[in-house]
């Protein structure tokens, strides 16, 4: 197997307006692995996936996916590359005017000339993989959150991509669907020979399946390694995040003037 990383991010800089999101990030995603990008809310984890998918462009730095410079691709070249990437959006992002079956058939119908007969077989195979073959006639509005994500996952792998990106796959799931998703991500990755990138802040679930973890904060990678390496790491930041400590390098208090002075300042200052 090719040893070069599937995704190579170097010196990534990106800002929204005046607010810098990434300030020199380097990330490698190894082929065949499940890599997690973790960090508190608002650190730009979702933005990172959009940068990898070419929906946003970095201000500086490079992003290569399978050797292709995503940050420079446009038009057809970008779309050709995207056919080889799957993405699972936070709430599934299923097309609401189609049922489950048509949602999964959508990329196949858009990009292939396959007969309906063959599409049916492919769709049923993907649905079987996520355990929802019986739900094929339901509309997205009739699905629970967990089911919607599984359908979206089936759709993401419909074109047999080389990688799948998961945007907060565990948020707001009950323990059972959480367990189902965790197992699905790992087994699909290994069975289909995918490369997976998970963006999440659900520590336990993500650590259970990730081969490698990057911790992001303040626009930089503050720690990286396998789950065990991070556990043993002496980074105060990693410790606070992994154990959910309320105070530490990420302060409990939003920046504010001195407490006593603030209280005594009276209503004039408010």
């Amino acid at each position, binding site marked *: 197997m090719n040893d070069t990383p599937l995704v190579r991010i170097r010196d990534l800089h990106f800002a929204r307006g005046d607010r810098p999101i990434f300030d020199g990030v380097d990330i490698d995603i190894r082929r065949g692995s499940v890599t997690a990008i973790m960090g508190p809310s608002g650190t730009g984890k979702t933005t990172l996936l959009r940068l990898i*998918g070419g929906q946003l462009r970095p201000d500086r730095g490079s992003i290569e996916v399978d050797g292709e410079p995503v940050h420079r691709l446009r038009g057809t070249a970008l779309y050709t590359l995207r056919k080889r990437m799957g993405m699972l959006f936070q*709430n599934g992002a299923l097309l609401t005017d189609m049922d489950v079956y048509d949602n999964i058939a959508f990329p196949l119908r858009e990009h292939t000339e396959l007969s309906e007969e063959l599409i049916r077989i492919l769709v049923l195979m993907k649905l079987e993989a996520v355990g929802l073959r019986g739900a094929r006639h339901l509309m997205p509005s009739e699905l629970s959150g967990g089911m919607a994500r599984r359908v979206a996952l089936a759709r993401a792998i419909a074109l047999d991509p080389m990688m799948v990106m998961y945007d907060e796959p565990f948020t707001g799931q009950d323990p059972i669907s959480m367990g189902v998703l965790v197992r699905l991500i790992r087994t699909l990755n290994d069975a289909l020979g995918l490369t997976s990138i998970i963006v999440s802040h659900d520590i336990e679930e993500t650590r259970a399946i990730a081969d490698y973890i990057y911790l992001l904060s303040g626009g930089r990678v503050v720690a990286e390694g396998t789950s065990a390496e991070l556990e043993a790491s002496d980074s105060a930041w990693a410790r606070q995040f992994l154990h959910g400590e309320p105070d530490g390098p990420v302060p409990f208090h939003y920046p504010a003037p001195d407490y006593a002075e603030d209280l005594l300042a009276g209503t004039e200052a408010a």
Partner: protein
Amino acid sequence: MVNTLRMLGRTGLDFFQRLGRAHLLLLAVLAGVPPLALRFSLVIRQLHSVGVLSLLIILVSGLFVGMVLGLQGYNTLVDFGAAESLGVVVALSLVRELGPVVTALLFAGRAGSALTAEIGLMKATEQLSAMEMMAVDPVRRVLSPRFLAGFLAMPLLAAIFSAVGVLGGWFVGVGLLGVDDGAYWSQMQAKVDLYDDIWNGVVKSIVFGAVVTWIAIFEGYDAVPTSEGVSRATTRTVVHSALAVLGLDFILTALMFGD
């Protein structure tokens, strides 16, 4: 003072930026129209939702507008002993003005707002993003068919509106007020010109259809992707469409009949 100027400048810049984005989007949407010839089923589905589903409100409104025209026209004409001209008055008011304009206003309220809300919600729920990530261009897949459908549906709806209105005027004038049946139709046939009246009305309805649909899909596509953003965009669609239709109506009327 400086702040006022700054605000004025920002508002102006925002306006022109939006105008620029709207035109770029229109170009992209138009580029996506020719390929639809191969996938016309996409357009047919949209024709159903913007056209067929607007039919009821168009039929009812057309009927009542025609009936009111019949009443009002009769009351004025009868003073001059010209009640037989009622057919001409009703038909000309409808095909030249009320047909295209009122249909466009109703179309903006019924179909335009629905288009904006649908597209805005697709954006807010990341469906458009998901399409992009599936290497499907949402402008071509979602916006172009809707634009073409609006463009095709509006003239048809305006024609139906006018036709129903003429029947409404006939019902009141001939049926209730005793205008001569033959005079109602024959005067209409003699005085309504195919090119000057009907064709100019059709041109108006085509222009209004394109503009209202353009505003609707742009507002949806440009909406802030939150529920509040979508509701604001929907309101803007109706308000801007109404203003655009009335403004354009004056310009078009001046060009067509103002020699």
